[in-house]
């Protein structure tokens, strides 16, 4: 890999990081709190690309062949190729960095949805605090699916009784008929996404997969308790199709 190509790859990778973290696109892939780090690292990579480019231009002015500059002799690259000497270039593995850039700009992969949620069992984490605090005031009150499920499954719906809740999630078709209101949770990035599924009672029979809906309803017992794979129920009072939220995960 020549110095010119190195600088182009640094520009591409840095530019891709800046591009997705300038808007909301990066939230399809990682948590919102990563934004400043993505911006900083993207900027540093672009800066590194600028420095490499300056080196190239300077070397060209001096009339050197930049790749034979002893300063950039790369010993360990020979190692990576089992000792075959292909000349003094930068690491050949860097070509692979074009792949994520191409994926970001050309495919623009969407947030994970019904495919991922359908493959994996619903997961309801047991609350660390045995004494579950009451929901905030208001009717309807907006709750996260994971919060609703934890209250329904691990606390017998004690804090949900008599409340009207509002939840936003996407549709995952239930292979046995009907559908689940679903939201994926991230620990770090989309590779570790874990679904929370909720069984709607009294809503439409079926909806297309990955449709985002806002459900207003009430807790009803059903779906099992005291199990981290239980799928709790919600009685649907009203349902509206909505746009995908800014952050598609919880």
């Amino acid at each position, binding site marked *: 890999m020549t110095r010119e190509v190195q600088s182009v790859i640094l520009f591409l990778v840095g530019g891709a990081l800046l591009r997705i973290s300038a808007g909301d696109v990066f939230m399809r*892939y990682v948590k919102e709190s990563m934004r400043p780090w993505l911006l900083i690292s993207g900027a540093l*990579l672009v800066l*590194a690309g600028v420095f490499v480019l300056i080196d190239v231009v300077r070397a060209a002015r001096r009339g050197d062949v930049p790749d034979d500059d002893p300063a950039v002799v790369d010993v360990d690259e020979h190692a*990576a190729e089992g000792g075959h000497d292909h*000349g003094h*270039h930068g690491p050949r593995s860097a070509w692979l960095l074009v792949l994520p850039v191409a994926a970001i700009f050309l495919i623009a*992969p969407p947030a994970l949805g019904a495919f991922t949620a359908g493959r994996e069992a619903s997961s309801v984490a047991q609350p660390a605090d045995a004494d579950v605090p009451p929901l905030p005031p208001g009717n309807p009150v907006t709750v996260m699916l994971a919060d609703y499920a934890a209250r329904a499954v691990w606390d017998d719906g004690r804090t949900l009784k008599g409340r009207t809740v509002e939840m936003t999630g996407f549709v995952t078709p239930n292979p046995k008929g009907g559908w689940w209101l679903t939201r994926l949770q991230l620990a770090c990035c*989309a590779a570790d996404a874990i679904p929370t599924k909720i069984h709607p009672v009294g809503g439409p029979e079926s909806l297309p997969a990955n449709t985002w809906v806002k459900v207003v309803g009430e807790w009803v017992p059903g779906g099992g308790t005291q199990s981290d794979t239980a799928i709790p129920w919600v009685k649907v009072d009203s349902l509206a199709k909505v746009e995908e939220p800014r952050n598609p995960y919880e």
Partner: protein
Amino acid sequence: MSSTDTSSSTKSGGWRFGPLEALTVGLIALLIGQRWISGLFESPALQAGATIFVSIVVQAMPFLVLGVVLSAAIAAFVPTSFWTRALPKRESLAVPVAGVAGVVLPGCECASVPVAGSLMSRGVAPAAALAFLLSAPAINPVVLVSTWVAFPGNPMMAVARFVASLITSVIMGWLWMRFGRTEWLRIPSRDHLTGRSSWETFRLTATHDFLHAGGFLVIGGLTAAVLNVAVPPSVIDSLAGHALFSVLVLALLAVVLCICSEADAFVAASLSQFSLTARLAFLVVGPMVDIKLVALQAGVFGRRFASRFAPATFVVAVIVSIVVGWWLL
């Protein structure tokens, strides 16, 4: 890739179709074919795979950048003689000290191989340099913090990783002292990427390490994405069921995946079907033995060294992970 040779040797004499031109043409072709390419990714499985691939790479990037910046700063601004002075004269004592000293080299394993090589060439005992080589990518603050972040529910994971990696690297240093032969080891004679000034060394090292490690990170992300989508969860679940077998499966997966130590904790966290001990083995083995690292070691220290050192490290790392996992997790 002989075209790269011709491009560099003939650059001064007229225009040739070199790597830069290839990259340009390739990018233009990708842009023209965008509709067709994105059409290929209509299936939900491929889309999910692409999302997971991008997310692993994007999540790892800031850690990788931080790692190479810090490691380049140390490579450029801390004189190597510092290490020689800091280490005890007695080799058996120098090994654990060097192992602990791995804390101060925040970089991934790709960075520690050349650093260990230059330590040896500056007169540090090989056993101590090897303990440092193994411990540095696994126990430095960047890696431990990312492990802690990746396992929000299990803060002991970062502790267990530190303990198991340190024990493994010290044992390997002592084993080399006792059984290693000098003729197996080729001590590198010169530092790589030394510029005309500290600043230039810093820039060259950081850029090189990023490009190098970034490429291997892409391989790791691709492999993980393919495994994630192609392998039905039930198959991995069945492998995950056996206590001892699952440890070996993940240890081997770490060797194959070649994920940089700054990013591997996030991949380990996503392998939630496996026991914590199996995932600990993944985190301990990965920074010490993986395909790209063995290749790096073979190049810097010679093949006779790598063919003995890497398998021995694998065995020791797996045993230590099982013991530490049973003790701490």
